Protein backbone atom coordinates (compact mmCIF):
# COMPACT_ATOMS: atom_id res chain seq x y z
CA UNK A 1 0.00 0.00 0.00
CA UNK A 2 1.62 3.18 -1.08
CA UNK A 3 0.19 6.57 -0.40
CA UNK A 4 1.90 9.75 -1.55
CA UNK A 5 2.06 12.28 1.27
CA UNK A 6 4.03 14.91 -0.60
CA UNK A 7 4.78 15.20 -4.29
CA UNK A 8 7.44 17.57 -5.61
CA UNK A 9 7.66 18.23 -9.31
CA UNK A 10 10.59 20.15 -10.76
CA UNK A 11 10.69 22.18 -7.55
CA UNK A 12 13.08 25.10 -7.86
CA UNK A 13 13.97 27.75 -5.30
CA UNK A 14 16.19 30.68 -6.25
CA UNK A 15 17.33 33.67 -4.23
CA UNK A 16 18.18 36.61 -6.50
CA UNK A 17 19.02 34.49 -9.53
CA UNK A 18 21.09 32.11 -7.39
CA UNK A 19 19.47 28.71 -7.70
CA UNK A 20 19.55 26.93 -4.35
CA UNK A 21 17.25 24.04 -5.11
CA UNK A 22 17.23 22.96 -8.72
CA UNK A 23 14.36 21.02 -10.35
CA UNK A 24 13.83 18.46 -7.62
CA UNK A 25 11.38 15.60 -8.23
CA UNK A 26 10.48 13.72 -5.10
CA UNK A 27 7.60 11.67 -3.78
CA UNK A 28 7.33 10.90 -0.10
CA UNK A 29 5.19 7.87 0.64
CA UNK A 30 3.60 6.91 3.92
CA UNK A 31 6.04 4.65 5.74
CA UNK A 32 9.11 6.03 3.96
CA UNK A 33 12.19 7.21 5.76
CA UNK A 34 13.94 9.51 3.35
CA UNK A 35 17.14 11.24 4.28
CA UNK A 36 18.53 14.19 2.40
CA UNK A 37 22.30 14.46 2.56
CA UNK A 38 24.66 16.78 0.80
CA UNK A 39 27.52 19.19 1.34
CA UNK A 40 27.11 22.57 3.05
CA UNK A 41 25.08 24.98 0.96
CA UNK A 42 23.53 22.16 -1.04
CA UNK A 43 20.04 23.50 -0.38
CA UNK A 44 18.97 20.81 2.08
CA UNK A 45 17.35 23.15 4.56
CA UNK A 46 15.76 25.20 1.78
CA UNK A 47 14.24 22.06 0.30
CA UNK A 48 12.81 21.14 3.69
CA UNK A 49 11.42 24.64 4.14
CA UNK A 50 9.71 24.44 0.78
CA UNK A 51 8.02 21.21 1.82
CA UNK A 52 7.01 22.78 5.13
CA UNK A 53 5.46 25.70 3.28
CA UNK A 54 7.80 28.25 4.87
CA UNK A 55 9.66 28.88 1.61
CA UNK A 56 7.75 29.58 -1.57
CA UNK A 57 9.07 27.70 -4.60
CA UNK A 58 10.29 29.89 -7.45
CA UNK A 59 9.27 27.35 -10.05
CA UNK A 60 7.76 23.90 -10.10
CA UNK A 61 5.15 22.55 -7.75
CA UNK A 62 4.79 21.01 -4.33
CA UNK A 63 1.58 19.25 -3.43
CA UNK A 64 0.69 17.82 -0.05
CA UNK A 65 -2.00 15.22 0.49
CA UNK A 66 -5.17 17.05 1.56
CA UNK A 67 -5.56 17.29 5.32
CA UNK A 68 -1.97 16.27 5.88
CA UNK A 69 -0.53 17.10 9.29
CA UNK A 70 3.17 17.82 9.38
CA UNK A 71 5.22 17.39 12.53
CA UNK A 72 8.33 19.55 12.32
CA UNK A 73 11.45 19.08 14.40
CA UNK A 74 13.62 22.16 13.84
CA UNK A 75 17.39 22.13 14.07
CA UNK A 76 17.57 24.04 17.33
CA UNK A 77 15.38 25.30 20.07
CA UNK A 78 17.20 28.40 21.21
CA UNK A 79 15.07 29.93 23.88
CA UNK A 80 15.54 33.48 25.09
CA UNK A 81 16.88 33.25 28.65
CA UNK A 82 14.28 35.84 29.66
CA UNK A 83 11.39 33.56 28.70
CA UNK A 84 10.55 31.16 31.53
CA UNK A 85 9.20 27.93 30.04
CA UNK A 86 8.76 24.44 31.40
CA UNK A 87 8.61 21.26 29.34
CA UNK A 88 4.96 20.96 30.34
CA UNK A 89 4.23 24.53 29.19
CA UNK A 90 5.99 24.01 25.87
CA UNK A 91 4.09 20.77 25.21
CA UNK A 92 0.74 22.30 26.15
CA UNK A 93 1.29 25.10 23.62
CA UNK A 94 0.67 22.44 20.97
CA UNK A 95 -2.98 22.72 21.95
CA UNK A 96 -3.19 19.06 22.98
CA UNK A 97 -4.35 17.76 26.34
CA UNK A 98 -1.88 17.08 29.14
CA UNK A 99 -2.45 13.33 28.75
CA UNK A 100 -1.51 13.38 25.07
CA UNK A 101 1.55 15.50 25.87
CA UNK A 102 2.64 13.16 28.64
CA UNK A 103 2.17 10.19 26.35
CA UNK A 104 4.32 11.75 23.60
CA UNK A 105 7.05 12.67 26.07
CA UNK A 106 6.98 9.03 27.16
CA UNK A 107 7.41 7.84 23.57
CA UNK A 108 10.57 9.87 23.19
CA UNK A 109 11.78 8.91 26.65
CA UNK A 110 11.73 12.27 28.40
CA UNK A 111 8.50 12.06 30.42
CA UNK A 112 10.47 12.33 33.65
CA UNK A 113 11.43 15.88 32.64
CA UNK A 114 7.87 17.20 32.41
CA UNK A 115 8.34 19.68 35.24
CA UNK A 116 11.86 20.71 34.23
CA UNK A 117 12.66 24.05 32.68
CA UNK A 118 13.40 23.92 28.97
CA UNK A 119 16.47 26.05 29.73
CA UNK A 120 18.03 23.26 31.78
CA UNK A 121 17.77 20.49 29.17
CA UNK A 122 20.79 19.02 27.42
CA UNK A 123 21.09 19.00 23.62
CA UNK A 124 19.79 15.45 23.36
CA UNK A 125 16.91 16.09 25.73
CA UNK A 126 15.92 19.18 23.76
CA UNK A 127 15.82 17.15 20.52
CA UNK A 128 13.64 14.55 22.21
CA UNK A 129 11.36 17.27 23.51
CA UNK A 130 11.03 18.76 20.02
CA UNK A 131 10.30 15.30 18.67
CA UNK A 132 7.63 14.76 21.33
CA UNK A 133 6.18 18.15 20.48
CA UNK A 134 5.96 17.12 16.81
CA UNK A 135 4.34 13.80 17.75
CA UNK A 136 1.68 15.56 19.80
CA UNK A 137 0.20 16.81 16.54
CA UNK A 138 -0.26 13.18 15.37
CA UNK A 139 1.68 13.85 12.18
CA UNK A 140 1.27 12.02 8.88
CA UNK A 141 4.65 13.34 7.86
CA UNK A 142 7.51 13.94 10.24
CA UNK A 143 10.12 16.42 9.02
CA UNK A 144 13.40 16.66 10.90
CA UNK A 145 16.18 19.14 10.18
CA UNK A 146 19.45 17.68 11.39
CA UNK A 147 17.86 16.01 14.40
CA UNK A 148 21.16 14.79 15.81
CA UNK A 149 22.94 18.12 16.05
CA UNK A 150 24.44 18.68 19.45
CA UNK A 151 23.85 15.08 20.45
CA UNK A 152 26.78 12.83 21.31
CA UNK A 153 27.54 9.80 19.14
CA UNK A 154 25.75 7.20 21.26
CA UNK A 155 22.80 9.52 21.62
CA UNK A 156 22.70 9.93 17.85
CA UNK A 157 22.40 6.21 17.22
CA UNK A 158 19.67 5.99 19.83
CA UNK A 159 17.85 8.95 18.28
CA UNK A 160 17.84 7.39 14.81
CA UNK A 161 16.63 4.10 16.27
CA UNK A 162 13.84 6.02 17.97
CA UNK A 163 12.84 7.71 14.72
CA UNK A 164 12.65 4.30 12.99
CA UNK A 165 10.51 2.89 15.78
CA UNK A 166 8.20 5.87 15.69
CA UNK A 167 7.76 5.46 11.98
CA UNK A 168 6.73 1.83 12.53
CA UNK A 169 4.41 2.76 15.36
CA UNK A 170 2.73 5.78 13.79
CA UNK A 171 2.93 4.61 10.19
CA UNK A 172 3.93 8.08 9.10
CA UNK A 173 6.40 9.27 6.49
CA UNK A 174 9.73 10.63 7.64
CA UNK A 175 11.88 13.15 5.85
CA UNK A 176 15.10 14.26 7.44
CA UNK A 177 18.20 16.23 6.67
CA UNK A 178 21.47 15.05 8.02
CA UNK A 179 25.19 15.53 8.04
CA UNK A 180 25.98 12.40 9.99
CA UNK A 181 26.55 10.20 6.98
CA UNK A 182 27.46 7.02 8.79
CA UNK A 183 24.47 6.92 11.05
CA UNK A 184 22.12 8.03 8.31
CA UNK A 185 23.24 5.26 6.06
CA UNK A 186 22.42 2.79 8.79
CA UNK A 187 19.08 4.22 9.83
CA UNK A 188 17.42 5.21 6.62
CA UNK A 189 15.47 3.49 3.84
CA UNK A 190 16.24 5.84 1.03
CA UNK A 191 18.92 8.46 0.65
CA UNK A 192 18.76 11.51 -1.52
CA UNK A 193 22.02 13.16 -2.25
CA UNK A 194 21.37 16.82 -2.91
CA UNK A 195 23.73 19.28 -4.45
CA UNK A 196 21.24 21.89 -5.64
CA UNK A 197 19.79 19.15 -7.87
CA UNK A 198 19.35 15.53 -6.84
CA UNK A 199 22.68 14.11 -7.86
CA UNK A 200 21.75 10.58 -6.91
CA UNK A 201 19.24 8.72 -4.84
CA UNK A 202 18.58 5.18 -3.81
CA UNK A 203 19.16 2.69 -1.05
CA UNK A 204 22.14 3.21 1.21
CA UNK A 205 23.85 0.04 0.08
CA UNK A 206 23.77 1.09 -3.56
CA UNK A 207 24.28 4.79 -3.32
CA UNK A 208 27.77 4.63 -1.90
CA UNK A 209 28.90 3.03 -5.16
CA UNK A 210 27.21 5.63 -7.30
CA UNK A 211 29.76 7.66 -9.27
CA UNK A 212 27.79 10.86 -8.60
CA UNK A 213 27.93 10.20 -4.89
CA UNK A 214 31.64 9.54 -4.99
CA UNK A 215 32.01 12.76 -6.96
CA UNK A 216 30.19 14.78 -4.35
CA UNK A 217 31.66 13.32 -1.19
CA UNK A 218 34.97 11.96 -2.41
CA UNK A 219 36.15 8.38 -2.64
CA UNK A 220 37.37 7.98 0.95
CA UNK A 221 33.98 8.89 2.39
CA UNK A 222 32.13 6.67 -0.05
CA UNK A 223 34.39 3.73 0.71
CA UNK A 224 34.16 4.13 4.43
CA UNK A 225 30.39 4.28 4.11
CA UNK A 226 30.25 1.13 2.06
CA UNK A 227 32.29 -0.69 4.66
CA UNK A 228 30.30 0.70 7.50
CA UNK A 229 27.01 -0.11 5.94
CA UNK A 230 27.83 -3.74 5.27
CA UNK A 231 29.11 -4.07 8.72
CA UNK A 232 26.00 -2.55 10.14
CA UNK A 233 23.70 -4.87 8.23
CA UNK A 234 25.66 -7.72 9.50
CA UNK A 235 25.57 -6.73 13.11
CA UNK A 236 21.86 -5.97 13.06
CA UNK A 237 21.02 -9.23 11.30
CA UNK A 238 18.94 -7.46 8.73
CA UNK A 239 20.50 -9.66 6.06
CA UNK A 240 21.39 -12.37 8.48
CA UNK A 241 22.77 -14.77 5.95
CA UNK A 242 24.79 -12.27 3.98
CA UNK A 243 28.27 -12.39 5.38
CA UNK A 244 30.46 -9.97 3.56
CA UNK A 245 33.81 -11.57 2.94
CA UNK A 246 37.03 -9.71 2.76
CA UNK A 247 35.81 -7.04 5.10
CA UNK A 248 38.38 -7.90 7.71
CA UNK A 249 39.00 -4.26 8.24
CA UNK A 250 41.14 -3.18 11.16
CA UNK A 251 38.34 -0.97 12.43
CA UNK A 252 35.87 -3.81 12.51
CA UNK A 253 36.27 -4.35 16.20
CA UNK A 254 36.13 -0.73 17.17
CA UNK A 255 33.00 -0.28 15.07
CA UNK A 256 31.36 -3.08 16.93
CA UNK A 257 32.38 -1.54 20.17
CA UNK A 258 31.05 1.86 19.32
CA UNK A 259 27.76 0.49 18.21
CA UNK A 260 26.65 -1.87 20.93
Amino acid sequence: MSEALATLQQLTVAFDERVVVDRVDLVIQRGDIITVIGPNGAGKTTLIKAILGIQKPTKGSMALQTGLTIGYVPQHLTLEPTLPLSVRGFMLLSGQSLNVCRDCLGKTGVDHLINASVHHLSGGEKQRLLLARALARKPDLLVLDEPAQGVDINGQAALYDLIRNLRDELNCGVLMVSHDLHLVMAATDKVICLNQHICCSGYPADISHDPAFIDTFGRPVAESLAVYHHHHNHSHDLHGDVVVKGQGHPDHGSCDHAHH
Partner: protein
Amino acid sequence: MLIIDAILNDFFWRALIGGLGVALVAGPLGCFVVWRRMAYFGDTLAHSALLGIALSFLISVPMNLGVIVTCVVLSVVLVMFQRSRALATDTLLGILAHSALAIGLVALSFMPDIRFDLTGLLFGDLLAMSRTDLLWIYGGAAIILALLAVFWRGLLMSTIHEELAKVEGVQVERLRLILMLMFSIVIAVAMKIVGVLLITALLIIPAATARRLAGNPEQMVGLAIGFGCLAITGGLSMSWFLDTPAGPSVVVTAFCAFLLVYGSARRAPA
Protein backbone atom coordinates in the same frame (compact mmCIF):
# COMPACT_ATOMS: atom_id res chain seq x y z
CA MET B 1 -21.71 57.63 41.43
CA LEU B 2 -21.05 60.64 43.61
CA ILE B 3 -18.02 59.01 45.12
CA ILE B 4 -16.64 58.08 41.70
CA ASP B 5 -17.27 61.58 40.52
CA ALA B 6 -15.48 63.01 43.54
CA ILE B 7 -12.54 60.71 42.98
CA LEU B 8 -12.32 61.65 39.32
CA ASN B 9 -12.37 65.30 40.28
CA ASP B 10 -9.17 64.89 42.22
CA PHE B 11 -6.10 65.12 40.02
CA PHE B 12 -4.10 62.73 42.19
CA TRP B 13 -6.67 59.95 41.89
CA ARG B 14 -7.04 60.52 38.17
CA ALA B 15 -3.29 60.16 37.83
CA LEU B 16 -3.28 56.98 39.90
CA ILE B 17 -6.20 55.38 38.05
CA GLY B 18 -4.69 56.28 34.67
CA GLY B 19 -1.27 55.03 35.71
CA LEU B 20 -2.65 51.70 36.90
CA GLY B 21 -4.49 51.30 33.61
CA VAL B 22 -1.25 51.73 31.71
CA ALA B 23 0.59 49.32 34.03
CA LEU B 24 -2.09 46.73 33.26
CA VAL B 25 -1.06 46.58 29.58
CA ALA B 26 2.58 47.61 29.94
CA GLY B 27 3.11 44.36 31.92
CA PRO B 28 2.25 41.84 29.20
CA LEU B 29 3.59 43.97 26.33
CA GLY B 30 6.79 44.60 28.29
CA CYS B 31 7.23 40.83 28.57
CA PHE B 32 7.06 40.54 24.77
CA VAL B 33 9.56 43.39 24.42
CA VAL B 34 11.96 41.51 26.69
CA TRP B 35 11.33 38.07 25.14
CA ARG B 36 11.65 39.28 21.55
CA ARG B 37 14.54 41.67 22.24
CA MET B 38 12.53 44.64 21.07
CA ALA B 39 13.68 47.21 23.62
CA TYR B 40 15.32 49.38 21.01
CA PHE B 41 12.33 48.95 18.73
CA GLY B 42 10.05 50.23 21.50
CA ASP B 43 12.34 53.20 21.96
CA THR B 44 12.16 54.01 18.26
CA LEU B 45 8.37 53.91 18.24
CA ALA B 46 8.26 56.08 21.35
CA HIS B 47 10.56 58.66 19.78
CA SER B 48 8.39 58.79 16.70
CA ALA B 49 5.44 59.68 18.92
CA LEU B 50 6.63 63.28 18.88
CA LEU B 51 6.29 63.31 15.11
CA GLY B 52 2.79 61.95 15.55
CA ILE B 53 1.95 64.79 17.92
CA ALA B 54 3.20 67.38 15.45
CA LEU B 55 1.16 65.79 12.66
CA SER B 56 -2.00 65.69 14.73
CA PHE B 57 -1.64 69.40 15.50
CA LEU B 58 -1.14 70.02 11.81
CA ILE B 59 -4.30 68.27 10.64
CA SER B 60 -6.15 68.73 13.95
CA VAL B 61 -7.00 65.19 14.95
CA PRO B 62 -6.84 63.88 18.55
CA MET B 63 -3.21 63.61 19.65
CA ASN B 64 -3.52 59.95 20.70
CA LEU B 65 -4.86 58.98 17.31
CA GLY B 66 -2.05 60.82 15.52
CA VAL B 67 0.51 58.99 17.63
CA ILE B 68 -1.03 55.57 17.06
CA VAL B 69 -1.19 56.05 13.30
CA THR B 70 2.38 57.39 13.09
CA CYS B 71 3.71 54.48 15.17
CA VAL B 72 1.87 51.89 13.06
CA VAL B 73 3.15 53.44 9.83
CA LEU B 74 6.69 53.60 11.19
CA SER B 75 6.64 49.95 12.31
CA VAL B 76 5.42 48.82 8.90
CA VAL B 77 8.20 50.84 7.23
CA LEU B 78 10.65 49.29 9.65
CA VAL B 79 9.56 45.74 8.87
CA MET B 80 9.88 46.45 5.15
CA PHE B 81 13.37 47.87 5.54
CA GLN B 82 14.34 44.93 7.73
CA ARG B 83 13.27 42.49 5.02
CA SER B 84 15.52 44.18 2.48
CA ARG B 85 18.46 43.60 4.85
CA ALA B 86 20.30 46.65 3.54
CA LEU B 87 21.26 47.75 7.06
CA ALA B 88 21.62 46.03 10.42
CA THR B 89 18.46 46.37 12.50
CA ASP B 90 20.05 48.42 15.27
CA THR B 91 21.51 50.90 12.78
CA LEU B 92 18.13 51.18 11.10
CA LEU B 93 16.38 51.71 14.43
CA GLY B 94 18.91 54.34 15.45
CA ILE B 95 18.37 56.25 12.24
CA LEU B 96 14.58 56.10 12.41
CA ALA B 97 14.33 56.83 16.15
CA HIS B 98 16.34 59.99 16.16
CA SER B 99 15.19 61.22 12.77
CA ALA B 100 11.56 60.86 13.83
CA LEU B 101 12.28 62.71 17.08
CA ALA B 102 14.16 65.47 15.28
CA ILE B 103 11.55 65.86 12.53
CA GLY B 104 8.89 66.05 15.23
CA LEU B 105 10.74 68.81 17.09
CA VAL B 106 11.41 70.77 13.91
CA ALA B 107 7.79 70.43 12.81
CA LEU B 108 6.56 71.65 16.18
CA SER B 109 8.79 74.72 15.94
CA PHE B 110 6.89 75.74 12.81
CA MET B 111 3.72 76.01 14.84
CA PRO B 112 4.43 78.93 17.16
CA ASP B 113 0.76 79.67 17.90
CA ILE B 114 0.19 76.21 19.34
CA ARG B 115 0.94 76.02 23.04
CA PHE B 116 2.22 72.76 24.33
CA ASP B 117 4.47 71.56 27.10
CA LEU B 118 7.54 69.92 25.56
CA THR B 119 8.92 68.75 28.90
CA GLY B 120 5.58 67.13 29.59
CA LEU B 121 5.74 65.25 26.29
CA LEU B 122 9.30 64.10 26.83
CA PHE B 123 9.14 63.17 30.51
CA GLY B 124 5.43 62.78 31.19
CA ASP B 125 2.82 64.92 32.80
CA LEU B 126 1.03 62.43 34.95
CA LEU B 127 -0.62 64.97 37.21
CA ALA B 128 -2.30 66.72 34.27
CA MET B 129 -4.31 63.60 33.45
CA SER B 130 -7.80 64.52 32.24
CA ARG B 131 -10.98 62.45 32.15
CA THR B 132 -10.59 62.14 28.39
CA ASP B 133 -7.11 60.72 28.93
CA LEU B 134 -8.61 58.12 31.25
CA LEU B 135 -11.06 57.11 28.54
CA TRP B 136 -8.22 56.71 26.05
CA ILE B 137 -6.19 54.66 28.51
CA TYR B 138 -8.97 52.26 29.47
CA GLY B 139 -10.26 52.02 25.91
CA GLY B 140 -6.76 51.20 24.67
CA ALA B 141 -6.20 48.77 27.52
CA ALA B 142 -9.43 46.94 26.74
CA ILE B 143 -8.45 46.54 23.08
CA ILE B 144 -4.94 45.34 23.98
CA LEU B 145 -6.10 42.87 26.61
CA ALA B 146 -8.71 41.46 24.24
CA LEU B 147 -6.11 41.02 21.46
CA LEU B 148 -3.69 39.39 23.90
CA ALA B 149 -6.32 36.98 25.15
CA VAL B 150 -7.34 35.94 21.64
CA PHE B 151 -3.84 35.60 20.20
CA TRP B 152 -1.91 34.54 23.31
CA ARG B 153 -0.96 31.03 22.17
CA GLY B 154 0.07 32.14 18.70
CA LEU B 155 2.04 35.12 20.00
CA LEU B 156 3.87 32.98 22.51
CA MET B 157 4.53 30.21 19.98
CA SER B 158 5.93 32.62 17.38
CA THR B 159 8.11 34.15 20.09
CA ILE B 160 9.51 30.75 21.04
CA HIS B 161 10.14 29.45 17.53
CA GLU B 162 8.86 31.35 14.54
CA GLU B 163 9.23 28.60 11.95
CA LEU B 164 7.74 25.93 14.16
CA ALA B 165 4.81 28.27 14.74
CA LYS B 166 4.41 28.78 10.98
CA VAL B 167 4.37 25.04 10.33
CA GLU B 168 1.71 24.67 13.01
CA GLY B 169 -0.46 27.17 11.16
CA VAL B 170 0.17 30.30 13.23
CA GLN B 171 -0.17 33.47 11.14
CA VAL B 172 3.22 34.78 12.21
CA GLU B 173 3.30 37.87 9.98
CA ARG B 174 -0.19 38.94 10.95
CA LEU B 175 0.59 38.51 14.63
CA ARG B 176 3.72 40.64 14.27
CA LEU B 177 1.58 43.46 12.89
CA ILE B 178 -0.94 43.03 15.70
CA LEU B 179 1.87 43.19 18.23
CA MET B 180 3.11 46.42 16.65
CA LEU B 181 -0.39 47.86 16.72
CA MET B 182 -0.55 47.05 20.44
CA PHE B 183 2.81 48.77 21.02
CA SER B 184 1.58 51.82 19.15
CA ILE B 185 -1.53 52.01 21.33
CA VAL B 186 0.39 51.58 24.56
CA ILE B 187 2.88 54.28 23.54
CA ALA B 188 0.09 56.68 22.68
CA VAL B 189 -1.57 56.24 26.06
CA ALA B 190 1.55 55.84 28.19
CA MET B 191 3.11 59.01 26.80
CA LYS B 192 1.04 61.03 29.25
CA ILE B 193 2.38 59.05 32.19
CA VAL B 194 6.13 58.87 31.70
CA GLY B 195 6.77 60.76 28.48
CA VAL B 196 8.20 59.50 25.22
CA LEU B 197 11.75 59.22 26.53
CA LEU B 198 10.84 56.96 29.46
CA ILE B 199 8.13 54.71 28.00
CA THR B 200 10.50 51.84 27.27
CA ALA B 201 11.52 51.86 30.92
CA LEU B 202 7.92 51.34 32.00
CA LEU B 203 7.71 48.42 29.58
CA ILE B 204 10.92 46.56 30.29
CA ILE B 205 11.83 47.24 33.93
CA PRO B 206 8.75 45.59 35.50
CA ALA B 207 9.00 42.68 33.01
CA ALA B 208 12.70 42.16 33.73
CA THR B 209 12.01 42.31 37.47
CA ALA B 210 9.25 39.73 37.08
CA ARG B 211 11.52 37.36 35.16
CA ARG B 212 13.55 36.75 38.29
CA LEU B 213 10.55 35.37 40.15
CA ALA B 214 8.46 33.75 37.42
CA GLY B 215 8.35 30.06 36.50
CA ASN B 216 6.15 30.36 33.41
CA PRO B 217 5.17 33.05 30.91
CA GLU B 218 1.75 33.74 32.42
CA GLN B 219 3.25 34.18 35.88
CA MET B 220 5.79 36.60 34.44
CA VAL B 221 3.01 38.67 32.89
CA GLY B 222 1.10 38.77 36.19
CA LEU B 223 4.18 39.77 38.15
CA ALA B 224 5.10 42.40 35.57
CA ILE B 225 1.66 43.97 35.98
CA GLY B 226 2.15 43.89 39.75
CA PHE B 227 5.57 45.57 39.60
CA GLY B 228 4.18 48.13 37.13
CA CYS B 229 1.36 49.03 39.53
CA LEU B 230 3.88 49.24 42.35
CA ALA B 231 6.04 51.62 40.30
CA ILE B 232 3.07 53.85 39.48
CA THR B 233 1.84 53.97 43.08
CA GLY B 234 5.31 54.45 44.50
CA GLY B 235 6.27 57.06 41.93
CA LEU B 236 3.10 59.05 42.45
CA SER B 237 3.49 58.99 46.22
CA MET B 238 7.09 60.08 45.86
CA SER B 239 5.99 62.92 43.62
CA TRP B 240 3.28 63.88 46.10
CA PHE B 241 5.39 63.88 49.23
CA LEU B 242 8.79 64.94 47.87
CA ASP B 243 7.54 67.16 45.07
CA THR B 244 9.59 65.29 42.44
CA PRO B 245 8.54 65.06 38.74
CA ALA B 246 6.00 62.22 38.47
CA GLY B 247 7.23 60.40 35.34
CA PRO B 248 10.85 60.03 36.39
CA SER B 249 9.72 59.12 39.93
CA VAL B 250 7.73 56.20 38.52
CA VAL B 251 10.81 54.95 36.65
CA VAL B 252 13.02 55.40 39.72
CA THR B 253 10.57 53.36 41.79
CA ALA B 254 10.51 50.61 39.16
CA PHE B 255 14.30 50.57 39.13
CA CYS B 256 14.46 50.31 42.93
CA ALA B 257 12.11 47.31 42.83
CA PHE B 258 14.32 45.77 40.14
CA LEU B 259 17.47 46.22 42.25
CA LEU B 260 15.73 44.87 45.33
CA VAL B 261 14.46 41.73 43.57
CA TYR B 262 17.74 40.98 41.81
CA GLY B 263 19.67 41.66 45.01
CA SER B 264 17.60 39.41 47.21
CA ALA B 265 16.36 36.51 45.03
CA ARG B 266 18.96 33.77 45.04
CA ARG B 267 18.46 32.64 41.51
CA ALA B 268 15.92 32.73 38.71
CA PRO B 269 13.50 29.81 38.69
CA ALA B 270 13.04 28.00 35.39
